[in-house]
């Protein structure tokens, strides 16, 4: 079949286009010379140098700390907010939902700059704390948008039954509602984490001297030109991403499996 052959070739070419740059990047992170075109032998020295690089290590530390803290805080505020929004009347609910979409739809550069102006005006020194506030802000919608659908699926009668059987609202929430919406909360948390780790533009505008995440460090290094140390760093990050993807994928298929069992 000529048609299947064409389809295969096309698929192959598109995937080549998508993966070739990444694969070249990874291969040349092991190249012993600085050249990006000629293979001169295998080495791990760029990885060793990367781990010795103070700037890279500090920004790795900030990336992780900010991603963890921001997504945890956003998960708590966001979950509480989702429950609140879910129980609102029609009009305020619509307003809140649309406001939640706002930071998702707004261009990153505008969000970043608007927050920068705010921080400068209230004289909040730009650095760790301002970046953390910015990250919580753009993480919140992802948590809310993952928890809301779970709340919609909830059967309110179970919660009422728990109350009828003498459970306090708090106890009923912990034992009835929370377990049912927890997959949504966890997905929201992971999404928020990924967004946080991945963010460059908003962090770039809301941080100050001395505090930068990996993306900012890569940007400032890449502006000066190509360096094998960045190759090593990005290869490791790619490995990390694949690992995280596998974990999430595992979780999701487990969730789906559970749902099917219940039904």
């Amino acid at each position, binding site marked *: 079949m000529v048609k299947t052959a064409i389809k295969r070739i096309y698929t192959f070419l598109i995937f080549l286009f998508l993966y070739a740059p990444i694969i070249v990047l990874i291969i040349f992170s092991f190249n012993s010379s600085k050249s990006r075109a000629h293979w001169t032998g295998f080495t791990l020295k760029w990885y060793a140098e990367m781990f010795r690089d103070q700037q890279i290590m500090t920004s790795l530390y900030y990336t992780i700390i900010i991603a963890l803290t921001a997504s945890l805080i956003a998960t708590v505020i966001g979950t509480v907010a989702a429950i609140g929004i879910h129980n609102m009347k029609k009009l305020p609910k619509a307003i809140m939902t649309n406001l939640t979409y706002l930071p998702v739809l707004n261009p990153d550069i505008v969000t970043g700059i608007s927050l920068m102006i705010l921080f400068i005006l209230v004289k909040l020194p730009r650095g760790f704390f301002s970046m953390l506030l910015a990250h919580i802000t753009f993480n919140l919608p992802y948590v809310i948008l993952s928890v809301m659908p779970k709340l919609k699926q909830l059967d309110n009668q179970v919660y009422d039954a728990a109350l009828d059987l003498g459970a306090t609202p708090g106890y009923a929430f912990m034992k009835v509602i929370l377990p049912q919406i927890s997959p949504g909360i966890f997905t929201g948390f992971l999404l928020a984490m990924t967004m946080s780790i991945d963010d460059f533009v908003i962090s770039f505008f809301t941080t100050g001297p001395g505090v930068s995440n990996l993306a900012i460090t890569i940007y400032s290094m890449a502006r000066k030109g*190509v360096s094998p140390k960045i190759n090593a760093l990005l290869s490791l990050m790619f490995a990390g991403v694949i690992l995280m993807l596998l974990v999430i994928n595992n979780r999701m298929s487990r969730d789906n499996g559970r749902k099917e069992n219940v039904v």
Partner: protein
Amino acid sequence: MKKHLLAYPYGLWIVIFTIIPLALIVFYSVFTTDAAGIHFTLEHFKRVFEPIYLSVFLRSMKIAAISTIVCLLLGYPMAMILAGKNLSKKSILVVLFVIPMWMNFLARTYAWMTLLEKNGLIAAALGFFGISVPSLLYTENAVILGMVYNFLPFMVLPIYSVLVKIDKAVLEAAEDLGAPPMTVFRRVIFPLSLPGVSSGVIMVFMPALTTFVISRLLGGAHFTLIGNLIEQQFLTTRDWGFGAALSVVLMLMIMFSMGIAMRYEKENEGGGLW
């Protein structure tokens, strides 16, 4: 139970960190402070329409439009191929398609820097065949390539998700009624896939219009798009008024194109985001 009160802390958060900051941008775009105090001005917006800045807007729109069209032309067939695969193959291919998206876009852009630069692999490969190319990096084409590379999945995935949902019976009916494959595509598949195409177009056009990183890294320090212009106003020239006016125009452009696309989607599906 007043559970809806639980949304109030978040409401406060939105007011402080989303609404007030956006209001500040609008404020700075139309007010200026001098010795006489704060007063209203349209000076900043007038500057946006000066020829040199207007040309930056036109260039950004041109590059974003070209990238979107290239993504559509490359992405649509890919989405069709993905949608046509059987189930197990499909999910693997879709995951493979998404993985590069999970890598930071800076990393993806940087990867092309290493390929395109003067001593890079592509120049070396072409040189091996005796073709010497002028500079590959720091050109307009490099910027477009970077955008297509970064945003192609945003085009393929929405189209794909619409295509898989198309009822096979409709296609079979068209074939039974004697439509040749081209007509089935033109009269049935393509019109049904338009909601996916419109969200794909938005998802590629918006980031392509607002980016300042891809143009900076692949286009060089002198390659200016709207994003770069805005960044300069706030970080280099410190002309907040003009930068704010540029941001407001950019936001309006995006809301406008989003509005068109949303209305379009509503007609097709009944109920979009808004």
